[in-house]
């Protein structure tokens, strides 16, 4: 991980110093820049090339008429005072007329420049009209509610569903009965098309804001309701409107040109790109290409540029589309600490020695495992040099505060990484290293040797596939020789083991409740009888009855099928009930590992003690919570990562990372309070003892 990068980002995050306007401006600018920095490089390039082109067109539209000698509607040149000479029609591009002349004796470049001015004028007017009407109606609709709201919503839906161009034509047509054609009716005709979009955004925000408690609160404090509403709606809408606005601006140019092409736009001879193209239709067969080509190119380029800006903004504003993990500096391949990272060396040997109650070969042997992510603020190791084993039929609990890397560890066992994530170290499953093997070998082992159960069952099944198809697909992928009927039979058995009637196998996922889906997921992950199941908070979103059913299932699988279990959870009670051993993680490292009863009754590491003391149980005398928060993984504290929060912290704690050392038989902690962590325990230091819920941290 590169420290330069953190430094470079440092000043950005620091607030402006008071009384220094220059820093203030810089800080504010960099604040506005923040989302751009997080967006992918592609989006940034798109936005800025688009902006460049738009600015170029703006210059052409406003300065062009001053700089360029021909007017768009000028058909003759004044050669001497009072003496005119006509411009010759349909001349090809030349030095005199860089883009040629039209059949109406106009200069093409002059018309393009004038057309740009017109396009910008209509664009601005049309979008303003749409925005003013849409926002007003949206506020009215959302604020008033009731029948007005319903009528407006349906009407807007209808307008939105109607072909935009036909709507614009008809509006232009209807307006022409009232006012004479010109820029304003054309802009109005174009603008009508976009009203529903603003209406919808503003109405929805008004509705949701109206129900917010803070509006109620502000109202009761005497603030004028409308002011409050207005302000909050404004701040919410401001995030979405720029995108709509830019895209509409782009579209309005097309609609204006289309109106012009059909002859319902701004009346001739005003320079307008669409009208000019319609005039050029008859030129084309005669081999006159310049009258049609240039105005069309102008449209394409300007609309493309505006769309690029709009799309880029959307990428930046809409975090869903952000490419996570692909921004920011690359992760350095070299491990950053001096602890050996591969098996067979100190950590590995120690890991193997930790051994647990079981003997024989472990189902999963993890050595020096690291999981890294690239983030916009810099690379981080979410799991940093972790080693442990899981034996057949054994259940290992994995606990720790949110963000300490539990899920990352679970997924890393399968090398299941999002873009930008990397796995280092060794994960040996059935004699093969998951980190090193080829993609196809890895796919073979996923699902077959290792099963993964996720936290959120609702969204883990393909909504378009029946439950049975999920099974058949997976079983036949791994065992092509199994027939569909046999696979279906396996599915039925697995489901009924989970307490789901086999008849439900033909259901779709949405026909299952959350608990059923989770049980189906578990059935799916055990269908191929893997060696180990990694269950990442499998019961967090379920009620206690389903939870205990699922835990029973796990228990049975372990005793009957000798399946190992890695249970990731926040719930210490669950661990006490289900697990043989437990590993405690803090900031990417395992700080303590050992048999459940020992860890619960006599935890050694101050973090484990704090964690237990903050949990309610029968023995609780006083509830303590650990002060402070876990450190940033991007720039973790030196030495022991718990030092900033540790009540026992000593001077040398921050010097080097403490190693896991045996504190009881089979129980190991990484803390300098115990001998073997890497430094001698100073004279007079007494390690805490006993159950922290009784004796205190």
């Amino acid at each position, binding site marked *: 991980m590169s420290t330069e990068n953190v430094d470079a980002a440092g000043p950005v995050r620091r607030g402006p110093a008071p009384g220094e306007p220059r820093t203030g401006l810089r800080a504010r600018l960099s604040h506005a820049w923040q989302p751009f920095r997080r967006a992918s490089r592609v989006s940034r390039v798109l936005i800025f090339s688009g902006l460049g082109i738009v600015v170029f067109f703006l210059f052409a539209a406003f300065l062009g008429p001053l700089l360029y000698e021909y007017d768009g509607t000028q058909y003759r040149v004044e050669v001497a005072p009072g003496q005119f000479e006509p411009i010759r029609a349909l001349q090809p591009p030349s030095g005199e007329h860089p883009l040629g002349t039209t059949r109406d004796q106009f200069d093409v470049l002059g018309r393009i420049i004038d057309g740009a001015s017109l396009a910008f004028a209509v664009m601005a007017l049309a979008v303003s009209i749409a925005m003013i009407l849409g926002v007003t109606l949206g506020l009215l609709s959302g604020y008033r509610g009731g029948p007005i709201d319903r009528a407006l919503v349906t009407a807007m839906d209808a307008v939105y569903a109607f072909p935009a161009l036909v709507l614009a034509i008809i509006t232009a047509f209807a307006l022409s009965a009232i006012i004479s054609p010109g820029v304003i009716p054309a802009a109005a005709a174009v603008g009508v098309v976009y009203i529903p979009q603003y209406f919808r955004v503003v109405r929805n925000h008004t509705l949701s804001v109206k129900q917010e408690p803070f509006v109620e609160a502000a109202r009761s404090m005497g603030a004028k309701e409308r002011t409050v509403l207005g302000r909050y709606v404004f701040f919410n809408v401001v995030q979405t409107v720029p995108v709509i606005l830019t895209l509409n601006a782009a579209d309005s140019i097309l609609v204006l040109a289309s109106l012009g092409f059909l002859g319902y736009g701004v009346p001739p001879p005003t320079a307008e790109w669409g009208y000019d193209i319609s005039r050029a239709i008859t030129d084309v067969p005669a081999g006159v290409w310049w009258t049609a080509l240039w105005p069309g190119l102008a449209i394409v380029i300007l609309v493309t540029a505006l769309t690029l800006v709009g799309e880029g903004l959307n990428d930046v504003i809409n975090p869903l589309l952000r490419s996570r993990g692909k921004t920011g500096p690359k992760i350095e391949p070299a491990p950053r600490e001096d602890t050996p990272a591969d098996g067979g060396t100190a950590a590995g040997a120690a890991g193997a020695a930790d051994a647990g109650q079981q003997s024989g070969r472990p189902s999963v042997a993890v050595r020096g495992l690291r999981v890294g992510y690239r983030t916009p603020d810099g690379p981080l190791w979410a799991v940093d040099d972790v080693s442990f084993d899981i034996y057949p039929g054994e259940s290992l609990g994995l606990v720790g505060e949110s963000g300490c890397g539990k899920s990352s560890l679970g997924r890393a066992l399968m090398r299941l990484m999002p873009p930008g994530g990397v796995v280092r170290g060794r994960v040996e499953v059935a004699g093969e290293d998951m980190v090193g093997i080829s993609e196809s070998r890895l796919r073979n082992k996923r699902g077959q040797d290792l099963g993964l159960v996720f936290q959120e069952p609702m969204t883990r099944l393909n909504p378009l596939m029946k439950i049975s198809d999920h099974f058949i697909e997976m079983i036949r992928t791994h065992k092509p020789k199994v027939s569909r009927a046999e696979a279906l039979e396996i599915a039925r058995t697995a489901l009924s083991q989970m307490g789901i009637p086999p008849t439900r196998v033909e259901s*779709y996922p949405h026909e299952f409740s959350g608990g059923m889906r989770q049980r189906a997921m578990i059935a799916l992950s055990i269908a191929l009888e893997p060696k180990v199941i990694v269950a990442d908070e499998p019961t967090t979103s379920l009620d206690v009855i389903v939870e205990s059913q699922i835990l029973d299932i796990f228990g049975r699988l372990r005793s009957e099928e000798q399946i190992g279990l890695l249970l990731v959870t926040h719930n210490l009670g669950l661990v006490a009930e289900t697990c043989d051993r437990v590993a405690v993680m803090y900031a990417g490292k395992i700080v303590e590992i050992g048999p459940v009863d020992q860890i619960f009754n006599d935890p050694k590491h101050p973090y484990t003690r704090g964690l237990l003391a903050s949990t309610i149980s029968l023995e609780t005398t006083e509830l303590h919570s650990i002060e402070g928060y876990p450190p940033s993984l991007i720039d973790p504290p030196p030495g022991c990562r718990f030092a900033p929060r540790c009540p026992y912290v000593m001077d040398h704690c921050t010097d080097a990372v403490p190693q896991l050392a045996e504190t009881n038989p089979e129980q190991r902690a990484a803390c300098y309070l115990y001998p073997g962590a890497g430094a001698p325990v100073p004279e007079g230091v007494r390690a805490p003892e006993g159950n922290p819920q009784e004796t205190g941290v």
Partner: protein
Amino acid sequence: MVLILLTLVFLLLRAVPGDPVTATLGGRATPAQIEAAQEAMGLNDPLIVQYLQYMGGALTGDFGNPVTDPRGVVEIVAETAPATMELALAGMLVAVTVGILVGGLAGRLRDTPFDIGGRLFGIIAYAAPVFWTGLLAQLFFAVKLGWLPSSGRAGGFDQPEWITGFYVLDSLLTGDMAALQSTIEHLILPAITLGLLVGGIFIRLVRVNMMQTLRSDYVEAARARGLRERNVLYRYGFKTALIPIVTIMGLQFALLLGNAVLTERTFNWPGLAQALVDFIGQRDYAAVQGIVTFIALVIVGVSLIIDIITGLVDPRVRY
């Protein structure tokens, strides 16, 4: 929805512009003739009566009679709508094909040169006005290379016998291969011109949806089960990404119809949109109103069809 749309059409065309007959016949008729025409169209009745008559007519398939054309609107629609529909369907085919192929691949290969190229292509395809691309296509493929005809629906002697009005279908029904060939040759340029524009939008939609589903929980879960990448991409990424596309296809169809107006004008395609534009030029309010009413009904019909299709492909909305 139907009622609201029709009401809007009525308001826009009947209530706003004042007196349609004077506007239509203008200086061409005597005051007595105008009076008679107004009486005949029921324009002297109160607005509410006119409204009810209009709605009643529209819902029972009576779209009124043009002032400038002896045929009824229904007849005009029957003669021109098949041409428009044929063009629109062919365009949709092009749009969907291009959109799914390019958008799906771009979403899969996000931030690679293909993605950037596909995205740019989508944006430019949408940014280019159909009448301009149509013109260029005519110039190049029809005038210069002479590969394809530049306008009309079929060669003079190759028109199929009129059965449904859909030439492709008609020539297949009558087994008239010359007509089929001519029809398809005439259809290619307009359909591609129109389809590329809408395809530009599809590319964007498919790409974004593909990106989102590829990052979804069930894709991760599918990978965790060790499925083949091809399977994950196709069954979990691609197929589920298409569902939201189907649901918004109705809107794209409206876009397609709107741009059919321009395509028909460019390729001299004898369709409904062309007729609409002609009547607008003649300021024939009655005809415009009738045709627009028909378009409104088509839009509603399409959204119904889309609902049905969604129901067929998405188990979550099956009944």
